[in-house]
């Protein structure tokens, strides 16, 4: 109880500080310097309709690279220390219901397609590599739920992940040679604004991001799934 009182006092202090911050926030009436630049030049320079995507993949491409790296790290660490059962056959898990299995069989490919769609169109509409990747991963969850006996090939995810990561970095480096710098979007022509094959290398990158995120999340989920059998 004493501890909670201390925490309350602490939170009051922190709340007071946050109050000061919120109090200093007045909203804005116009875009600031950086945002205006993107609003004005984003479409022209990058060729992506979705400015968020333009920023995420191009202007702040390094952030995105870092971010997929974090997922990569998480997956690698989880793989490293959530040890998997080597003797897969020994486990004794109830097979899931017929219905779930059938539904999964139908839904999973659809979900995968949806995921791919989301990250392919990332530069045009809301969504992109992260969301698409997450959708693919959720499809996998369904798969795992319906067919617990099926050994998921985590090697496959690892390979996809590595390939897409490597390509991502490769494209970034190619930017140095072919264009203005690391991760420069304009190593491919920008194309016609608003179409699928536009915005230079951006869609490619976002696809790679999608693949990478998807495979990483899938790998991660697989690892957590595998822990289920250790009892």
């Amino acid at each position: 109880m004493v501890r909670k009182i201390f925490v309350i006092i602490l939170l009051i202090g922190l709340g007071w500080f946050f109050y000061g911050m919120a109090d200093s926030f007045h909203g804005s009436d116009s875009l600031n310097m950086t945002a205006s630049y993107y609003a004005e030049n984003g479409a022209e320079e990058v060729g992506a309709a979705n400015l968020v995507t333009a920023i995420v993949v191009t202007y702040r491409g390094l952030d995105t690279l870092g971010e997929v790296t974090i997922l990569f790290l998480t997956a690698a660490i989880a793989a490293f220390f959530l040890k998997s059962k080597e003797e897969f056959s020994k486990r004794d898990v109830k097979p899931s219901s017929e219905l779930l299995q059938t539904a999964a069989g139908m839904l999973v490919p659809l979900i995968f397609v949806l995921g791919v769609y989301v990250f392919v169109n990332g530069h045009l509409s809301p969504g992109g590599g992260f969301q698409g990747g997450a959708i693919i991963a959720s499809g996998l969850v369904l798969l795992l739920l319906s067919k617990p006996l099926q050994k998921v090939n985590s090697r496959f995810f690892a390979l996809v992940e590595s390939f897409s990561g490597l390509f991502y970095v490769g494209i970034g480096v190619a930017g140095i040679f072919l264009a203005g710098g690391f991760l420069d979007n304009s190593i491919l022509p920008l194309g016609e604004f608003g179409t699928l094959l536009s915005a230079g290398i951006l869609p490619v990158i976002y696809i790679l991001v999608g693949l990478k995120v998807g495979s990483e999340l899938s790998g991660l989920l697989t690892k957590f799934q595998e822990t289920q059998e250790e009892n």
Partner: protein
Amino acid sequence: MVDSILLNPIYIIGIGLGTSFILGFFKSGRFQAHPSAMHSERIKTAPWVLMIGALTVMTFISAEWLWSFLFNGQLPQQIYTAGFEPPFSINLLMGRNEAFFTLMVNLVGLLSGLYLLDKFKEMGTHALSVYLVLIMGLNGIIMTRDIFNLFVFLEIASIATAGLIVMTSDVKALSAGFKYMIATGLISGFLLIGIIFAYYFGGSLNIDSLAEANLTTVQGGVFAVFLIVVSLLLELKPFPANGWGIDAYEASPVGINAVISSASAGATYYVLSKVLIITDAKWYAVTAVVGIITFLGSNLMGIKQTNAKRMLGYSSVGQVGLLLVILGLSEQLGNSFKFIIFGIMMSHYLAKAGLFWLVGIVKTGILKDWGILRKKPVLVFFMGTFIFALLGLPPFPSFFAKWTLVLTLSAAGLNLWVGLILFGSLIEAVYLFRWFGYVLKLDADKERSLSTPFYRTFPVWLFGLLSYYIGYVASVMVPGGETLGMFYLPLAFVGFLFIIDRYLPVWVKNTLSMAAMALYGWYYMAGLSEFRMLFAIIFIGGGIVTMIAGYAKSGKRVGFYPFVVMMYIGLGGLLLSENILQFFISWELMTLGSYVLIIRGKKSMPHALSYMMFSLGGAFLILAGFGLAFAGSGVSSISLDILKNVTRYSGLIYTFLAIGFMTKTAVIGLHIWLPGAHAEAESDVSPMVSAILLKAGMFGLVVLMLAMGSQSLGGVSLPYLLGWLGAITALLGNLMAAFQEDAKRLLAYSSVGQLGYVVFAMAFMSHLGWLTALAFALNHFVFKALLFLAIGGVVMRTKTKTMYEMGGLIKRMPLSFISVLIGIIALSGLPPLTGFAGKWLSYNAVIEKGWYFQGFLVSIAGLVAFLYCFRLIHVIFLGQPKDKFKNIKEAPIAMLIPQYILIGVIMLFSLMPNMVLKPIGEFLVQYFPDGALQWDGGTAVSSLGRWSGVAIMNITIGIFGTILIWLLFMSRKAVKVKQFNIFYSGEAPSRPELTHYGYNFFAPYKKAVGFLVQPLVTRFWDGIADILHSISDFVRRLYNGNGQMYAFQVILFVVVFSIFTIG
């Protein structure tokens, strides 16, 4: 110029990432628990080779950049990503600082990667990826100029760290990793709020643009600045909100914590320094305050630690605190800032990585098990290197940095900071030296072996040697560094001795060392005059004489000669010094060398530690004094002459320097290190440290007093205080000597007393006083060396130092007996031998000056000296010989030769005191023209009395000889009788033990005046140590191991910090 296409810094990131992705192609290795999953050796090594390759390229790139910055005039280069200019896209910067810091990170990454070979083999490719990403992330942190990108890289680094912590895969590591994640999660949350608000108020994420936006002037912007600064500070694990970080240090595998400590801390530190440009001066001050609290607090915590990793963790945090102080004070430090940071940073970097690597080689964190390291003396050498480097001893870079820091801070008037920094350094020295002592002294577990594969020792070697090289670089860069040439050749010889140390027998090395010292004396000292010449004779001449005793040793005596020579170089350096830098380096070299010599004694571990503590404390006071003098003299010069021109703080400077020097002369209150250190040292080391080393403090006082004359502090004349102090020291030192049972301890306390005389006499600040002091000093050197050598010889044979266990040795060791006899006559100041000169002069000085009561105390001290002198000779040499020593031999000839040389000196000096005292008086006249002694041939004439050494000697010998001949003639038929042929009421005692009265010899005295020698001073210092330990123990309860507690502390830090800064 660096080719910006082929060696683009972005490749560091690209290669790091790309390679870790490639590593994903390899099958992952698994834990050892599943041997079925183990892959063949080659497959397991291939990914590792790949990673090492990547790290090598990364290292090469940053090295190449640094090279061009340093030598090719390369200009800093902006690296734009995505082909757009900042602030609209993320940009990186490769400047001189970035090149430097990335090189640091990559190099330690590479070496740790190498070091962790078998660990990685065990853990598989995932670990390799994570490791590589960590290094890459740290590079990103350093180079990026975008604050959100910075956040991403920080997250990468902290997640990778959390991942690597669990590589050891035990539950401790897991819980530590979890706590680490909780804390860093909160911190990065705060950072993110700060970033987004900075964006809101500053309109950009680019650090340079934010700096232009002057956030601190915007209402609300200050919140953003606050959160950014506080989170980055928290990333640096400030005390007391750093329990999570400390646990992480303790839990992570050794190669990894080397990276965390050296590279991560460096990178995060650099981040803070570059982000601080978005703030204003106030935040620099805040950083400095947080830094000093961390520095002091963490080092205090370190005292109580028993685990090497955790202790090093505290030490790392403390060092980062120091770096923060420097960063916070960068404005005040001005041009020296970069040099100081460079020095402290490099030392911390090299030493911490090296020490952590050593932890892995020793394979235990328990400090008391570290004796095993002695199986590899080279590693002990490097461990010493690292510890000395960490503590800022020469010739390591941090020494020069701390030196410059103190001088610059003093010049800027920031004396409190100097004090706190030095105090913190002293606390840090406590536990590091204690640890080093364990390594050198504690018994090793015989069963355990020390496996030292090349890939583990190579990094240690490399960083150890780099420490010296960087130290050299720093020594050239430091102001006044051009005057350090005088150390190069002598220290090169020390290096040579280190190299040959393990291969040559002792007599070769002894001869070489003596020859080297003779050459050193000949080439360097020949031009000296006056005081310096006098001390040169004691230091170098005396050193050579005492080293003759070294021939008595057999075997190799590894680790002895380099330090002996180093000590003498330090002593010689004091005399050659023309500026305070040279002087201070010499002082530290001497301390270092003597520390190692002292700790070589069998039971000297605690004594060597207290020696080092007092020496370092003294050295820091000297440093502070020099700093004040530098500031107070008004001329920006480091010449020793500034002491003469001091206009401000003169009282303080005088006090600091005097106390600093008196730690070496062991004035009462600062003497407790001496008895143990001198008594436990080896038989030929004791004379060096007692007869010679103590004079270094005296020389310091000479320099100080000649330059500054008499000063007063708070209306009290300082020489007057010194006079009292010296007199009390003389009395108490001698009294304590009288009550010792241990022969060498007795001599050691006697040294305390004798040096008390010296301080007393110097305090007169008069011609006669100084003449007395110098006569005392010369005498003390001669007879103390003689006595220590003689007693050392006895101890060597009897294997005991306890006097009452001996007895009757005169029959077995007559030559040693004569040495001791001459020695004690000289010591107690009986005419006709040389000791009387000092007594006579001191009476003259006392009456002339009017310090009657002080003089009275010193006279009593002389009487007491008589007591212990007699005890020394009686209990050891006279009385009944013990059975067990019936057949012992005379001391080795090598020990006797120097003794008889010294006896010769005593005799010569006794016969012709004018030969020595007259020239001394002649040059003293320059400084103290009044009251000089007149010489009438061999007779000294003062205004009060006269003293003719020659006449006294001749008359005494005449009487003595006459009576002796008469007596011999009268009892010419007498023969020596058996041991027990004494009158004992008819019964001969059966055991010699019963008939040797030696224990508690002066029992009545002890009953009567024992209250004077209560170990009050010891209790005082013990009390201080206890208080420090208790505080440490109490405060560290904060770190109760609970993750929530740590989170609480982190948030509390934020809240309290906000109250103090913006509240």
